């Protein structure tokens, strides 16, 4: 390498900000079987979870680059017996540590050990407001257990985010879901409309709510905010299928987010491993610095230089960076295309067709049985989404 090219490389590195957000997906194993799980549909084919030491290496190298928010997710991260020591190492390195859990596996002993390890916050997921629906949607008997987990989280003084993924089958219960959040004394509530990746893409017609359902849920959420002030902070994430412009996915490719999969792949977002023709680096063989600044996987869709029409001449390209690469691939069959959620995309009709179907209650596509996330189904379907 000449001196000049080295100088140029340094300059480029200086322009790219640090991976502020590190998402550590500790395992794809999960006791729940949620029909909208974002994990890859073929997750059961992956083997060889990273070891404790390998996670320490990831945490250390990412922290050196400036990562500061660290999420422990999965699958169900409580299934890792070494969760407490991994959290302790993250805390020691100066991360703000977040545990994203279904609550399954949380008991007095472990929640105390996590507190001692320096865990800062717990996000607890519910599938719905009642035992019947929660247990139906996760195909488990976990509602009562989650209520107990919520009590433990509060008793140990953690701030709590309650997360509920919203879709056609629970969106009409939004008031009861908000009441549940209030009853368990959550500080933050995420009413996250399903994004159609992974298992949610498999079950898309059964999950996408109608426009009327969506407007009602948004109205009730706003009314709750007016009535109760900001004691609980509410986030209502709209499904992008109802938008005309795409979301600024991950705040830009390789901009602030770094996901590490259970088997050690480094991804710019948690679903990017579905994309064809792109090799994502492995943390066992590459440093986080090489991954973030130099790898093809992270540089391919950074910024705006890779764009095609209609994105490349679009005045809004810096606002949304062309939307989501995975959605472009799933729907337009080209990861470099405009996200078809955008009404400038030539494939936008493929979104509106799904939206139109969602307005007709009980149509043939909606009444197909839901496919639950599980290892057997994963191997049978044998596809990334």
């Amino acid at each position, binding site marked *: 390498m000449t001196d000049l090219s080295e100088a140029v490389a340094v300059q480029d590195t200086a322009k790219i900000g*640090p991976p*502020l957000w590190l998402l550590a997906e500790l395992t794809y194993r999960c006791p729940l079987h949620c029909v909208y799980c974002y994990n890859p549909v073929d997750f059961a084919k992956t083997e060889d979870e990273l070891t404790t030491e390998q996670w320490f290496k990831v945490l250390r190298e990412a922290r050196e*680059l*400036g990562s*500061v*928010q660290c*999420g422990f997710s999965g699958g169900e991260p409580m299934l890792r017996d070494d969760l407490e020591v991994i959290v302790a190492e993250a805390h020691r390195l*100066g991360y*703000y540590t*977040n545990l994203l859990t279904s609550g399954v596996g949380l008991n007095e002993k472990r929640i105390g050990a996590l507190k001692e390890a320096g865990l*800062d*916050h717990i*996000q607890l997921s519910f599938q719905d407001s009642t035992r019947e629906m929660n247990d139906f949607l996760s195909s488990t008997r976990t509602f009562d257990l989650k209520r107990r987990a919520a009590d433990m989280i509060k008793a140990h003084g953690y*701030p709590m*985010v309650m997360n509920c993924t919203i879709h056609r089958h629970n969106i009409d219960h939004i008031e009861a879901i908000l009441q549940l959040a209030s009853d368990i004394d959550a*500080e*933050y509530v995420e009413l996250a409309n399903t994004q159609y990746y992974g298992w949610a893409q498999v079950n898309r017609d059964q999950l996408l709510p109608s426009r009327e359902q969506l407007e009602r849920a948004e109205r009730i959420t706003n009314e709750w905010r007016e009535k109760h002030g*900001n004691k609980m902070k509410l986030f209502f994430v709209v499904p992008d299928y109802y938008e005309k412009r795409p979301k600024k996915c991950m705040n830009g490719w390789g901009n602030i987010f770094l996901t590490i999969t259970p088997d050690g792949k480094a991804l710019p977002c948690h679903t990017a491993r579905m994309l064809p023709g792109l090799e994502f680096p492995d943390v066992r063989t590459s440093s986080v610095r090489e991954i973030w600044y130099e790898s093809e996987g992270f540089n391919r869709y950074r910024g705006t230089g890779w764009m095609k029409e209609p994105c490349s001449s679009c005045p809004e390209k810096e606002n949304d960076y062309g939307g989501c690469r995975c959605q472009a691939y799933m729907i337009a069959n080209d990861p470099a295309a405009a996200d078809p959620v955008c009404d400038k995309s030539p494939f936008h009709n493929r979104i509106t067709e799904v939206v139109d179907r969602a307005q007709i209650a009980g149509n043939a596509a909606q009444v197909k049985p839901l496919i639950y996330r599980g290892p057997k189904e994963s191997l049978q379907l044998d596809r990334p989404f």
Partner: protein
Amino acid sequence: MAITTATVPKVGRNFRIQWEPAQDAYVLLYPEGMVKLNQSAGEILKRCDGAANVAAIVADLETTFNAQGLEADVIAFVELAEQQKWVDVT
């Protein structure tokens, strides 16, 4: 609650302030989020320890930065910080 020189602000229970060399800034961390603070916000907020009142914070800042007349700025920031729940005030 109206903020006066007697108000004692404290960084909120669910927030953490720390210096981040990679961002060359103080940041405020909370569940799944972060606010990057500008220099004056960082310098004020790191002094919100639940012991010093606004008058003491102003005096400390004026000494440290060899400045005068910071009271109105500090009060305005603490008002904003309280609305955002970054600080609790007593």
